[in-house]
Structure formats: C-alpha cells, structure tokens
C-alpha cells in the first residue's frame, strides 16, 4: 500500500546555521508507528537529493509522535550568507511531506 506522508503527518522546519531542522509529527499513534518504521535518515537524505548536501541525523520523540531530522549543509551557508529564497528552510517541512512510500 502506498502512503502519502502529508496524509498522516504534519510538521515544522527551521534553521540551525547551515543545517535545516525538520520535525515531522504523526496525527495518531498508528501514523507514528508508520513514520518510525519507514522514515529513516537514508530515505530523507535521498528525498532531499540536490538540496541536502550533508549528513542527515534522525531523532525520535515518541511522546509527541514526532521525528526530528537535522539536514546538514542544506541552506546555502545559512543566516544572511545564504542567497536562497528560502534561506531559513521554512518550507522544507512541506517538502518532506511530499514523500510517498510503500508500506
């Protein structure tokens, strides 16, 4: 069965220097089981090919049904150095929610 991430989760993203942080929150416990099982760091790194040029770190927050990803080397230098229109990675949570995967 194919799952669209945006149907089972929401989230928020922001900047930490040149790294972006993306928090993904499942709407319910079943959704959290799915994202915890299928949404690994490698898959996120692959999804952001061409955007995330560094490593992806992944952390679990089961208490709020969330995963937190740190995407290194992603924001074109970060802060006022970055020339990107979305220099703070504000829209990257939505970009991750575009993901579809088989379960």
């Amino acid at each position, binding site marked *: 069965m194919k799952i669209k991430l945006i149907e089972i989760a929401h989230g928020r993203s922001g900047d930490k220097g040149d790294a972006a942080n993306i928090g993904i*929150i499942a*709407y319910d416990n079943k959704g959290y089981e799915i994202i915890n099982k299928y949404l690994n760091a490698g898959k996120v790194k692959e999804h952001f090919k061409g955007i995330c040029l560094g490593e992806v770190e992944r952390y679990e927050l089961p208490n*709020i049904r969330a995963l937190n990803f740190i995407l290194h080397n992603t924001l074109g230098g970060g802060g006022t*150095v970055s020339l*990107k*229109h979305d220099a703070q990675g504000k*829209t990257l949570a939505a970009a991750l929610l575009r993901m579809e995967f088989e379960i």
Partner: protein
Amino acid sequence: MKEKIRIASGQGFWGDLIEAPYNQVTKGNVDYLVMDYLAEVTMSILQKQKNKNPKLGYARDLPELMQRILPVCIEKKIKVITNGGGVNAEACAEAILQVAKSLSIKDLKVAVVLGDNIKDNIDSVISSGCELNNMETGESILKVKDKILSANVYFGAMPIVQSLTQGADIVITGRTTDTGLTLAPMIYEFGWKETDYNLLSAGTIAGHILECGGQASGGNFLGDWKSIPNLEEIGFPIAEASPDGEIIITKHESLGGRVSFETIAEQLVYEIGDPKKYITPDCVADFTSVQLNEIAPNRVKVFGITGAEPTEFYKVSCSYSDGYSASGSLTYSWPEALTKARAADKILRSRLQKLNLEFDEIHTDLIGYDACHGPLAVQIEEDKINEVMLRVSVRGKDFNSIERFGKEIAPLILTGPPGVTGFAGGRPKPSEVVAYWPALIPKKLVKPEVKIFSLKDIL
C-alpha cells in the same frame, strides 16, 4: 508563595505583531509579559546603531510600546521581562524611565542585565586560554577576529531572577536565551533551586513554547491550518505555571488562534537538535519527556518533564562582516514564462562573466516555479505556467562587483526576452553580509551584572 502564575508571550521577534503585547495585558489577567526581540542578525544591526550613536543599540519599538502598556502594567501589577536591551540595555532603561516620567508615573524600578557583551574583551578571553573556536566547524577565531561586529554571551534565567529579587518591575537584558525570559519568573515566584533540574527544564520547555509568539497558538501551523479561527486577532500563548513544574499553555479566550496538541507539538520540534539534550545555561532539558494533554479547549497541560544539570559553558554568538550581497528580480509572463526567465538568467550570467566581476556565488531562484522545493517541485507544463519571477542573487568580497551586478538587472527589460515586468525600487544595492561565529566560553570567565534604575536616576 503563589500557587499559579500566568506568563504571557508578547513578541516572537523584533518586527512581530505590535498589537500582541497590548492584547496580552488588556484582554485578560497575566502576571508577566515576556518579549523576545533578538534574532542573531539583530545584535550586529544594534551594534552598528550604537557605534553611530551611543544612545542607541536597543529595540526602539520598546519605549513606544511601554508608552501604551505601562499604565496597564502598573495598575494590574504585571512585570515585563525582555531582551530588547540589545547591546545598550542601560540606554533602553533610561528611555523607558523617560516614558514613565512623561506618563506621571511615581514609582518604577527598571533592572538591566549587563555583562553579555564581550566584543571589547575578546583578546583577554583568548589570552586566558579560551580559544573561541567555531562550535560547528572547529576553525580558529583568529581567522575572523578583525572583522567581528558583535560578540555576546547567552545568559540564562538567573540574572533576571536576581533582578526580580531586587524588586524590578521591568527587566531589560541584552543577549539572554529566549527560554530564560519565561523560566526566570517561575524560579523567582516558586523558589526553585539551581539544582532543581526537572523543574528548570519544565520552565525551559514552557519558554521554548512561548518564544516564537503566535507560532504556538495557531500561526504558521502546517496541520489543518484553514480550521484555525480568527488569525486576524490571534492570541499569543500564555503559560500558567505551578510550583510543581506543571505548565498549562493557553491564550486569552476572546482572541483568535488555537492552542492544541498539534499546535504545541509543532512548536516543540521547531529548531531543536538532539531532543534529549536541549542545552541552555540553566539546564539540559529532555524534550522526549514532555507529555501533552488537552484538558479543555485551548488548554494543554504540559507535564512529566525531566532534565539534567547544565554544562560549564555559555554559548557565545559572534557576528562578523563577510563581504556583500545583492539580489534583483524581474517577472516574465505567459507564454513561455519559464523559458524566458531561464534565457534571461543565462544572458545575465554571460554578461557578468564578460565583465570579469568577482563573485563567491551566483544563485538563481525561479519564484512561482521551484524556488522553495527545488528538485522536489512538480514539473508543470510550460503552457500552464502563467508567470515566473526570476530572482538572481550574488555574494562576494568585492563591493564594486556586487554594485555592478545591480546595474545589470534593469537592462534585461529592453535587451532580453519579452513579456517582462516588475522592475521596481531602483537598482539592487549591495548589502553587507553578516556571518555567525558560534562558540563556547567557560562560565567562570563571564559575570552577569544587574543594575537597578528608578525615576530619580533620570533628569
């Protein structure tokens, strides 16, 4: 001891909704108003303002705001805590006392927290053995030392607690952690100790929820955002804290927005790293311990929080001048909007190359097409694209190259692809690039200082 205090968030950044702090003190009962004004870029801007005029260097919105809210705060005994002092907290305090005088207020104590600004003692810090290496890259600060615009230590809640203990009605700090602004009144009111790490972590997490203002009460909500009521009059979050560290996040009933599991959860994950180690000068809070429970509409109980002792270090945020940048844009319309924008970009880049200008980077965004999501954006058939905004940006060390770039945008209107508009506001001007240098400094090398000012201290 009070059994409960209500702490209201009034600003999430300098430039936030001006009506928010006014609404927080007038639309219901609160005990404290906390306002975060300092993004990292703000410190360098304020330092430049102070260099030009020694009376400036703080958030100038603040005295103007106090003019409106001070009479209410005094009547309702609401204390105000803010980091809007920037790099000149004393001048900010004086401006606020002048406002109080003009309002014929008889009695007001304003505390300032000083000691965070280490720009002028960087050499002595380095000679004492603290290398101020870049926390992220490990590079030596000697590389950028001569270009430093500002250098500030992040203090925690304790200097604010000291200010409140000395009877301050208003506390103005320089660089203080956003979370410390909210944690401090809890420590002061409930007598929490410096070693009560679980309690300090609870207050810190409440501070994290409040620090971005409306972003915890329905603003910028990526869930079912269309269902959030009355965003036009959004109520900023309020933390109701109890001595045992239980926090209820809520908002004034008459205002808009929403406080729910989902809105709080989105703010909890905002700009965090390892959730088990949220490091502040006061404690290391564990975000995986937080439990959220919706106990009533717009009331979320935040409980179960644990944490650990803080590190031996303060974080230092230095900013330094790192060249210049400029950005110019033009809009191309149907038909072939995308092809035209790409062609214009190619022509522009080729002209820049022939001029032998020096850039560290040239970046192109096709706004309306893929500027936000890049390769993840859905491909749209050219015929279905109504318009595309071409935005080209450059960055480099050579001012003249950046300035010349600005003169190459407008000519594309008459010498490039057709169907172009949207050139307004003149040639793009070079602006200084301010880069960051995060570092650590042993706590023992820096000492926060609290000074109290009252109406008799001003002329």
